[in-house]
């Protein structure tokens, strides 16, 4: 009996180890592979069978970040850097606008227990259901007429469709966790809602606010379709820039890999540094 038992336990352990291995391989292999590719020279990339061992080079990163020799000689800013800058301005701006509007809105939703409040919350959630084109195709017509097409202001405005519902839902979930006794005490002392919000709720909910801002920034950063429809040469974000450069130069895999790594950097850094807050934010606060 004991021998049989230990054999079964051993088999269980082996199965489990295999499970973990498969899991890690599935999730990590594409990222590791593209990272390796970004460090390869052209010859190493097109070699078959694929090379796992090679002399790493930074030439792909140098080219996408500082430009090719011709661009450097002409003193031009390389495309990817401009796209990155556009993305920082658009997503950063969108998050700042959203958080200012979302803090009071989320607080209101978290502190009123009526059916109406719940319905409004579900309205915010249902913005996720709509196909983006139902709003942004007509918006294209409106933007070209009003001069908002291909402007930072226009892009920041349309990105509110992503960042605002996201921020409100995440923040409301965090605000609900704050015990109301402190606020009650302040209210008895005569503080009004705005004061309570600014001097009590916001300081306590700082991790929640950070979580909302990080998630909203990443989702805005990762978005392609808004840029595809509403951005031209002046505000083209990084996701669209990468796609466009790939379409014209199918074979430049090394540059694609390096650009991919650079554009995925905000997300990956956030994933490692703020794992807990992100987990909660990704599910819009529905799961803690």
């Amino acid at each position, binding site marked *: 009996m004991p021998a049989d038992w230990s054999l079964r336990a051993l088999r269980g352990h082996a199965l*489990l180890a295999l*499970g*973990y291995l498969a*899991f*890690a391989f*599935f*999730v990590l292999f*594409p*990222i590791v*592979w*593209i990272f390796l590719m970004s460090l390869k020279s052209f010859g190493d990339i097109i070699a078959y069978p*694929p090379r796992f061992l090679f002399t790493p080079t930074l030439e792909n990163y140098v080219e996408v970040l500082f430009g090719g020799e011709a661009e450097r000689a002409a003193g031009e800013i390389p495309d990817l850097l401009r796209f990155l800058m556009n993305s920082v301005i658009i997503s950063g701006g969108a998050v700042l606008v959203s958080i200012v*509007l979302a803090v*009071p*809105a989320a607080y*209101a939703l978290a502190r*009123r227990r009526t059916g109406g*409040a719940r319905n*409004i919350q*579900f309205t915010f959630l*249902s913005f*996720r*259901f*709509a*196909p*983006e*084109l*139902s*709003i942004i*195709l*007509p918006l294209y017509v*409106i933007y070209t007429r009003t001069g908002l097409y291909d402007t930072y202001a226009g892009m920041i405005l349309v990105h*509110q*469709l992503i960042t*605002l*519902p996201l921020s*409100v839902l995440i923040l409301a979930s965090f605000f609900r966790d704050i015990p109301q006794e402190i606020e009650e005490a302040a209210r*008895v002392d005569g503080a009004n*809602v705005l004061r309570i919000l600014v001097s009590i709720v916001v300081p306590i909910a700082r991790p929640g606010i950070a979580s909302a801002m990080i998630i909203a920034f990443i989702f805005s950063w*990762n*978005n*392609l*379709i808004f840029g*595809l429809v509403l951005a031209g040469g002046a505000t083209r974000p*990084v996701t669209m820039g990468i*796609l466009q450069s*790939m379409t014209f130069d199918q074979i430049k895999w090394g540059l694609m890999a390096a650009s991919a790594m650079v*554009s*995925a950097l*905000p*997300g*990956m850094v956030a*994933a490692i540094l703020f*794992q807990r807050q*992100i*987990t909660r934010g*990704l*599910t819009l606060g*529905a*799961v803690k």
Partner: protein
Amino acid sequence: MPPRRQDASENGLARGTFLLLLAPALILLFLSLYPFLSGLYTSLTDQKLYAAGGTRFVGFGNFVRLAGTPLFWTALGNTLTYTALVVAIQLPLGLAFALLLDIPGRLQSFFRSVLVLPLLIPPVVAGLMWKTMMQPQQGVLNYLLSLLGIDPQPWLANPATAMISVVLIDTWLFTPLAAIILLAGLQSISVELTEAARVDGASPWQIVRRIKLPLLGPYVLLVALFRVSDALKSLEIIYATTRGGPLNATRTLHVMAYEEAYRWSNLGRAMAIVFVLWALCYAISGTLLALWQRQEARRYAR
């Protein structure tokens, strides 16, 4: 604590304050109603995207025409196939990941950090990454298969395998979301419950099947809600890899609408497609949301 003010104690914030705090966000969001409604009108016209000149009101002409277009039915089928495959693959796989990560161990926090990585990569970039890996001749995926003795696959290049290839990329990106939600569900189950079953001699597998899975109901619904609502309107991965091809094998309604507008300049017809998709999204996602709400309400009532 005795109630101080009737309104404040029963409903929380007073109604005026509530609306005042909420107003700026709601107003900004409902600005989007204007383009939405103007788009609805556009779907009833023959408006072109680029051509100047007047547009004609055509009533439901665009919708009638769509019904007679075989490609529309292909795209509708593709949209539903994509969504069904996404749920059928990602729910069980996500559950497997969640069960794996629920087992206490030394590497768990590392695995959990790893888990969220794909979710934070732009879908377009993920599409491009996989497109390189799925190259039929030089791609690393076929090389890895060859090590296992499996024949090379055409992946995205062949109409027969393109759909499942795109779904595979979606699976890599979004199964972690399913796993995160289900893992949270597993961890909300009280330890006493599983411990009691273990003492009574239940095997780990029995505990999973008889105790844990039945309690995961609301979480499974939440996964379905998130994944279905996204899959119905999927566009970015497809746009980065196949653009709807080969031979329309991956042309979903959302992709078709985009092409109709930007390739053929038929804005009116594009909007008609978009609103069919919109109705589909709200019908399906709305049903799932209602189901989830009911489960949640029941849980709070308990």
